[in-house]
């Protein structure tokens, strides 16, 4: 069963008086529990595509159905509510709130739910144990290493039990070991918990952990050939 169904989407940006086409008639389907990696050179439109899948931006035309919901027709408020319940985000630079502890950062998305404090606590503890950071729950982001911060970010992404996970260069700011740990965790989320993940990356090692590899160049999506992976390595 497909969780993500993208049909013929076009996206352009206005830069001054010019209109720059970023995505050209993209169609893509991703099955439930699939781990898809998007590669491509800088400016190819992969982050834009990720933004559209995550409901952070709107396409000029085309359809995006996620978990049966047509999100291209949702209002901004509707999208915000949809994101809160359906999407988990993992960023390159973790994007944790520096004034909140690890526990509080993970609890943050739950503030938009009707869960009681007790229920929220149970969810946060579960998410913390998933990333093996129970002993760091009272630490502020500045007191954690990069790898630990990214694990907190993953815990924050999964605490609401979202339909899909989107990750933008999740290993881009990590050393090899931490990157490996994070990728292992993402793999587990897909294989053991059935989460559907879309990851944008420049790192072929990271991309190789995905079940499916797609390549985007000049706004056109294709299956990633080995040559493209190699080229990506070089750039």
């Amino acid at each position, binding site marked *: 069963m497909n969780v993500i169904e993208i049909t013929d989407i076009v996206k352009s*940006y206005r830069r001054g008086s010019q209109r720059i086409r*970023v995505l050209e008639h993209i169609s893509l389907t991703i099955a439930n529990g699939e781990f898809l990696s998007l590669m491509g050179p*800088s*400016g*190819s*439109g*992969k*982050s*834009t595509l990720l*933004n559209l899948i*995550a409901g*952070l*931006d709107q396409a000029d035309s085309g359809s995006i159905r996620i978990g049966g919901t047509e999100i291209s027709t949702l209002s901004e*408020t509707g999208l*915000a*509510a*949809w*994101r*809160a*319940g359906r999407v988990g*985000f993992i*960023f*390159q630079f973790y*994007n944790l*709130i*520096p*004034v*909140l502890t690890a526990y*509080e950062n993970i*609890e*943050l*998305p739950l*503030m*938009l739910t009707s869960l009681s404090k007790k229920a929220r606590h149970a969810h946060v503890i579960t998410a913390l144990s998933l990333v093996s950071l129970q002993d760091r729950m009272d630490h502020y982001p500045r007191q954690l290493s990069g790898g630990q911060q990214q694990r907190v970010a993953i815990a924050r992404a999964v605490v609401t039990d979202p339909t899909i996970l989107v990750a*933008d260069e999740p290993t881009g700011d990590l050393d090899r070991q931490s990157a490996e740990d994070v990728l292992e965790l993402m793999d587990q989320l897909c294989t053991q918990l059935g989460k559907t993940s879309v990851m944008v990356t420049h790192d072929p090692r990271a991309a190789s952990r995905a079940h499916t590899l797609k390549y985007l160049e000049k706004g056109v999506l294709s299956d990633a050939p080995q040559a493209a992976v190699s080229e990506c390595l070089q750039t």
Partner: protein
Amino acid sequence: MRLKLLFRNVFRHKLRAFLTIVGICVAILAFGMLRTVISAWYAGVNASSSSRLITRNATSLIFPLPISYLEKIRGVNGVREVSYSNWFGGIYIDAKNFFVNFAVEPRSYFDLYPEFVLPEAQATAFFRDRKACVAGQKLAKRFGWSVGDTITLKGTIYPGNWDFVLQGIYHGKNAATDENQFFFHWSYLNESLKKNDPRRADQVGVYIIDLKHPDMAANVSEAVDALFRNSYAETLTETEKAFQMSFVSMTEAILTVIQIVSCVIIAIIMAVVANTMAMSVRERMGEFAVFKTLGFGGGYLSMLILGESMALSGIGGILGIALTFPAARAFAEAVGQFFPIFHVSLDTIFMDIGAAMAVGAVAAMIPMWRVIHIRIADGLGRTG
């Protein structure tokens, strides 16, 4: 969590938060002090009674009225009691020891001014002794006077040294009553003038009329002035409030300037806090984008910003208000002779609170607008 987040953000940059709070505190303190000066200026007006009229010479207050008018005024329909007073302008030891001193007809005067509360035994002693005087308790405290002391005033309008025996110390019925005044017998002054300067004898500065009912003010004023129309000393009768206002209006330009300065202070601190909030929000645009990504709406985030701004202004405002009280006390002690009623009124506190809230609200406006309208992709700084 919301409050925790709000206060942690407020104090994220401790030095900046501290300096902003100090700025707001000083601004609110200055605003409160200036408003208190304005209130003090109007203290006489506010303390005046609606049932009292003042009759003075129509030409100018500096020209006296004959004592012979007393009985005629007393006979006007609607008049309950009449008293009179003369501005004496005496100096105690040195000119810098300024205080208000009047020659009055004691019984009727204290009958007309029940806000001056004098113990019965002291009142009796004051009424009986022609050389007696009474002083307000703040004045007595200022110069260390006790009942029985001899006080000598040097006359400026009425030359010579004038000795009085302090027979009473009055206190005010309420906080608005001036306790810095000095009263003595008009008859003592008049008898001396009869001997030394008969041309100035049998004259009073103003008549004070107590009405049977405040509604009769217009009719009584008209009737009194009609009595002396075309005489050599025509009268002008007005309510005590209007009489007091005529003194305030002489200094209206100063009051206007003080009012403008108090508003300018608030406008300046508004700009300072707005700048602080704008900087704080600009630095955290990425964080706000993360909040939006997670599903938090613009309304939630703008309330967070408004809360931060209000918290900064609130803390500064509370400190400013708290400091206004000791500052006002110190100011009153330093210049009490010019502002006998100098206390921070409830109105001033409400205005302080209003000003602090306005600072907080206005300072948050532009940052709120920016956060509501920021695109997530721009905030996160990641496109294509």
